């Protein structure tokens, strides 16, 4: 964002970047930036906290009124209160993933788990009024079938002409993760992203399935599939050590 600030400012627009990675901002030196101590993905801090979000926005916009630049890099002082775990949050189900089962068992577990979560996800949609699923353009059941097919060793095919098979797989995985994380957050508790991520990657059949699909794709002769599976399916912090 710092580079965009530089380009737009050169075109006579006043800009302020939000910075989540201070070292990058210090090196790029945009006209103005507000560094925020929030996790990646939350540049305005906690969800469902309009007052906090407005404080971040105003701290940033007030830099535009200042005359003592360039370069202005200020720090937002407060942490995101929603980064803390919620001890009141409960797992959507107490369900042991079949991580050590055969590929077919894992695929069946995964597909039945998607059905099991449907009520939770419906509850989320009722609560929020919408879902962020939709990148793939497939139903969640079809996303599940596409990924389960990879567990079963099926040839990867894209149901959409505009997406290559590897790209289709990437978007289907994005939608599956969104489905699970939305379902996991349904209810009145406010789980942290880490709580939800720990549940998804360590305690669901879907997490086990994605690890297995990633490992299988990395042995593919399709370099694009290897690239997508290796980098854009399982977060770096969740990749399992070999063996």
């Amino acid at each position: 964002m710092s580079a965009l600030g530089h380009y737009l400012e050169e075109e006579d627009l006043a800009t302020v970047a939000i910075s989540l990675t201070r070292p990058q901002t210090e090196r790029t030196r945009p006209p103005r930036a507000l560094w925020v101590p929030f996790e990646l993905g939350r540049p305005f801090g906690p969800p469902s906290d309009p007052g906090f979000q407005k404080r971040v926005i105003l701290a940033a916009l007030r830099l535009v009124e200042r005359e003592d630049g360039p370069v202005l890099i200020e720090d937002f002082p407060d942490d995101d209160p929603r980064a803390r775990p919620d001890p009141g949050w409960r797992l959507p189900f107490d369900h042991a993933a079949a991580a050590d089962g055969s590929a077919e068992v894992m695929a069946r577990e995964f597909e039945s788990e998607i059905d099991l979560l449907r009520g939770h996800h419906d509850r989320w949609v009722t609560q929020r009024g919408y879902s962020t699923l939709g990148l793939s353009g497939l139903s969640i059941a079809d996303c599940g079938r596409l990924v389960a097919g990879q567990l079963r060793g099926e040839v990867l095919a894209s149901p959409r002409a505009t997406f290559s098979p590897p790209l289709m797989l990437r978007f289907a995985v994005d939608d599956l993760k969104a489905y699970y994380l939305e379902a996991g957050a349904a209810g009145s508790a406010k789980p942290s992203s880490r709580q939800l991520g720990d549940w998804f990657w360590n305690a669901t059949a879907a997490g086990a399935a994605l690890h297995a699909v990633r490992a299988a794709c990395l042995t593919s002769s399709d370099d694009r599939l290897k690239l997508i599976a290796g980098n854009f399916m399982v977060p770096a912090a969740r990749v399992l050590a070999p063996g």
Partner: protein
Amino acid sequence: MTRLTDLPPAQAKRLAELECPDFTTRPWVKGPALPQCRVAIVSSAGLVVRGEEPFRGRDADYRAIPADTRAKDLLISHISINFDRTGFQEDWNVVFPLDRLNELAADAVIGEVAQTHYSFMGATDPVLMEPHARELAGRLKDDRVDTVILPPV
């Protein structure tokens, strides 16, 4: 998980050492007072309006997000999976604070909110984004925008 020191070491190192443009100029445009400013969001979250083509790989262009877009119609298609999406799933203002800007404008804290906002895909090489950013500046000025807030993910 709020600072680089809270990230897995390899990810923190990659982020901290990511190659950045080495600009030789230091542009500076004095902005208007907040009650007079007209604000646009230019995100780098790979945001797309539902139904439009998502960003693929490291596309260098940008997508328009009209001001009447609803939360249910905005998706993240950023290529990186190493950032939180649960905040956005609960409340799009975490990434794209359009509701908050509209409230600030309604309270006369800021002047106005742009008719159209935009998103790039932030993992793209900034050098490739440059011509698109310069072209976007013209569109922003056509919309009488004088203040741009640039949130990443």
